Every structure is written in C-alpha cells, then in structure tokens.
C-alpha cells in the first residue's frame, strides 16, 4: 500500500467550538496526516491569536499555520492601536479577509472563538471559500460529518461550563472513533471573562463507544489472553 509520504500535510481533523453561558469551549483532536502516515500524533490545532481569542485549524497544515500567523501579527498591531484587547468579531473578520481574498490558493477551514467585554463568548465559523458565520456552535474538519446529527440532538442553550466541555470532549471522541483522519488526544480550551484554561484528555482515557476494544499495549497481550499455554511434555 502506498503511504504517499510526499503528500502535503493535512489535518484530517475534527474541530469544534461551542458557546455556553459565560464563554466558549473550543475542542480538537491531535492527528496530522501525510497521505496515510500520521506525521504528528500529538499536534495542537487550537492556536492562540490574542489573550482572549483562539482559533481551531483544519485542512492544509501549512495554509492554516500561515493564516493564523498573519492574523496574530495583525491583531497584535490592532491591539496596540486600540489600546484594549481585540474583539472576537475583529479577529474573525481578519481571518475572513485572508481566506476570501486568497480563496483560490488556500485550503483551510477555521473556527474562531473567544470572549470580549462587549459581546461575551462568541464562535465564528470560517469554512473553505471565506464565508463568516456567527453560530452558537460550529463544527469543522473531516470528522465533523459524523457529528451533525449528534449536535442537533445534544446541544442546548445556556449550558454550564462543565456541561459544555463534556459535550465537546464526547463529540470529538465520537468523531475520532469513526473518522480515520482524526485521532490521538482531545484538547480543549475554555475562554471566559476570567481567562483561558487548557485541558488535555489522552486517547486511552476516553469513553469506549460501540464495538470499540479496550486499549492494549501489545498484540502479544491480546493473543496470550485468548487462552493458557498448551502443556509441554
């Protein structure tokens, strides 16, 4: 089977952004793939733009890194000029300007989330093509296909911080179970008026879903568990 190690790095990915009463929770998996090889099994797809605004990256790894680097730089200048922290809407707009004006050359879907004192917690989805959509929750990446129905049923307004984070972790974990291009660990970032909290959920600590096996360290353990060794003469 051809691994195609020359393929550009893409983050198959599952990315999620959810608002709750008081802020936002952003979540992502950690798999970066080159063709069929996992180039980085512990990548961090939730990147900081300012103290109070973060972005989840999906699609081409190079394109999303470059876009977020530029926007971080623009926002830094903007913050100095304004004399106060940048708002989430401005951050989303800057990303959108780059994504829309370079739509022929970029292949990256982003979810911007943060908290500011004017609007509180906000999530903006910026898919391929460069539209900006302000949403109570947003999902993106290849793994998101498996989550549309889940969110229709499970999301509700005015969740608490704990409920929102558990929802995000559950959703990423479900997507990891079904999507080959998502995997590794679940990372979450909670942003509210008090600040930013980063959390980390290792893959083997996540809940097991339908037909999933317990994580094992070695194939030998599985084979030996099947039965005792036959008696030797």
């Amino acid at each position, binding site marked *: 089977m051809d691994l195609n190690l020359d393929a*550009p790095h893409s983050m198959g990915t599952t990315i999620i952004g959810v608002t709750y009463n008081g802020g936002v929770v952003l979540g992502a998996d950690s798999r970066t793939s080159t063709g069929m090889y996992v180039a980085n099994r512990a*990548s961090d797809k939730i990147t900081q733009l300012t103290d109070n605004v973060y972005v989840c990256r999906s699609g*081409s790894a190079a394109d999303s890194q470059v876009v977020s680097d530029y926007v971080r730089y623009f926002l830094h200048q903007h913050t100095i000029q304004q004399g106060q922290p940048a708002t989430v809407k401005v951050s989303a707009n800057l990303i959108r300007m780059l994504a829309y004006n370079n739509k022929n050359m970029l292949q990256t879907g982003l979810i911007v989330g943060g908290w500011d004192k004017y609007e509180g917690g906000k999530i903006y989805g910026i898919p391929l093509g460069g539209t900006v959509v302000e949403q109570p929750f947003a999902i993106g990446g290849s793994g998101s296909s498996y989550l549309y129905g889940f969110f229709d049923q499970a999301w509700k307004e005015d969740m608490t911080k704990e409920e929102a984070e558990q929802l995000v972790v559950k959703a990423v974990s479900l997507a990891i179970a079904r999507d080959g291009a998502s995997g590794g660990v679940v990372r979450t970032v909670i942003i509210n008026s008090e600040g930013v909290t980063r959390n980390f959920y290792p893959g083997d600590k996540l809940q097991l879903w339908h037909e999933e096996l317990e994580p094992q360290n070695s194939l030998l353990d599985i084979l030996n568990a099947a039965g005792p060794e036959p008696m030797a003469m």
Partner: protein
Amino acid sequence: MSQSAVDVPPKGGFSFDLCKRNDMLTQKGLKAPSFLKTGTTIVGLIFKDGVILGADTRATEGPIVADKNCEKIHYMAPNIYCCGAGTAADTEAVTDMVSSQLRLHRYQTSRDSRVITALTLLKKHLFSYQGHVSAALVLGGVDITGPHLHTIYPHGSTDTLPFATMGSGSLAAMSVFEAKYKEGLTRDEGIQLVAEAICSGIFNDLGSGSNVDICVITKGNKEYLRNYMEPNPRTYVSSKGYSFTKKTEVLLTKITPLLERVEITEVGEAMEE
C-alpha cells in the same frame, strides 16, 4: 535555445511561466525527468541537557548510490543544526541561505540566534514556493529559551515535538523512538537511541545506508560526531593489491599549490587626511 527572455514578475521572485510550458509538454506526451531525491533517514530528539540530531549518509540518484558518505546535518548557527531530507540541492541551498540570514541577524541584534527564528525563516521560504522546494527538515538547537526540536515539511507546515523523524526511512526510525523514547534521557542513552533509530533506517530502508552521523547540542556547547558509527565497512580488500595492465603509465605525482605565499608588509603609519 529560446530566444525570448522569460518574464520576471514585477515584484521579483520565482517565475512560474516555465511550469506552464512543462505542463503543456507532459500533456503532449513528453516524459519529465524524475527528481533526484536523497532517500534518507534523519532524526532528532530532546534529552535532559539539549538536543541530539542524527542522519544516515547515503545520497541516491534513482537506483544508484551517488555519494556513500555525504553530510546531511547542516550548520545553521553555532547553537543550531538542521538535518535535511528530500532533494539534495534544495536542502543544501535552503539551509545555506537561512544560515547566512541568521548570521546577518546576529550581527544586527548582537544576540545568539534562536531556533524559532530559523524556523520562521525556513517556513516562510518553503511556503512561498508552495512545496516545489522539496526540502523536509529536522531543525534542532539550544538557545536562551532552552532546547527546541522542530520538523519542517516542503509545503511550509511545522511541528514541534520531543522526538521526530523524516525521510524515506522515517517509519523505521519512528518505530524505534515510539518503543524506546522517554523524557529525561542522559547523553549516552540519547546517542544510543538515535544511533539505533538511524541504523533501523539504514538496514530496513533501501534509500538510506552507509554510516551514522550524530550531532549533540547542549547549552553553550556542540559536538559534531561525523561517522559516529560505521556499520557498513568495506569487508573485502584484496591482499595482493591492485595492479594495472602494462599499457597504463603512472606519471609522476606532483602537487602544485595554486596560491603563492602572500607577504604581509608592516604598514608604516596610518593614513591621515
């Protein structure tokens, strides 16, 4: 060949006009020459006191080994080294270019170079060429903020990892790292693990071979261990020596220095206006 000059874009930089011509020719049935890649195993890991980089030494031209003992660990700064996989010309050129940019930056800022500076210069260059500069790099060094290890891919994306492998032998080497790496390795343990990973690439990947090069970078010190291990020595050497047929004339061996000795005369007094 072509009489007209190729148009240079007004802002300078690479002109992609010939790429359109190449596309047209391939559509008409011309087989493009294949790229010369260095099938390679390059690795890096972070240990207790710094960073260890490792590489094999085989350079290939298709099925032929072009260089049995090439150097894949490139100097970037006194405290930063970079292993390169992919097209040999691209890795050499891009590491040399960024190495000089770093030196100029050091002169300007009067500070030691930082690894993230090298990282940003490399990733900007590679991204602007959209993957056509086929250089996959493992960049490692120790600066004032501590030890750092990064991988850089031809399209310009980067990852920051405690251990990393690249090149055609990367899967073989990564299997060794995933099985045996732990945090807080000592210098000797780290070197042994890197050598083991490169050997795994040398013996299991056809594009990698010959010897193991290692570079250990710690705070304020670096050790470039060229040919640290030579697991593929030439085993048969004829005891009778090699004799040439009668018609071959061995001429006198004479070495002529090209530069004459330069005499420096003491200058009398400094010039004055």
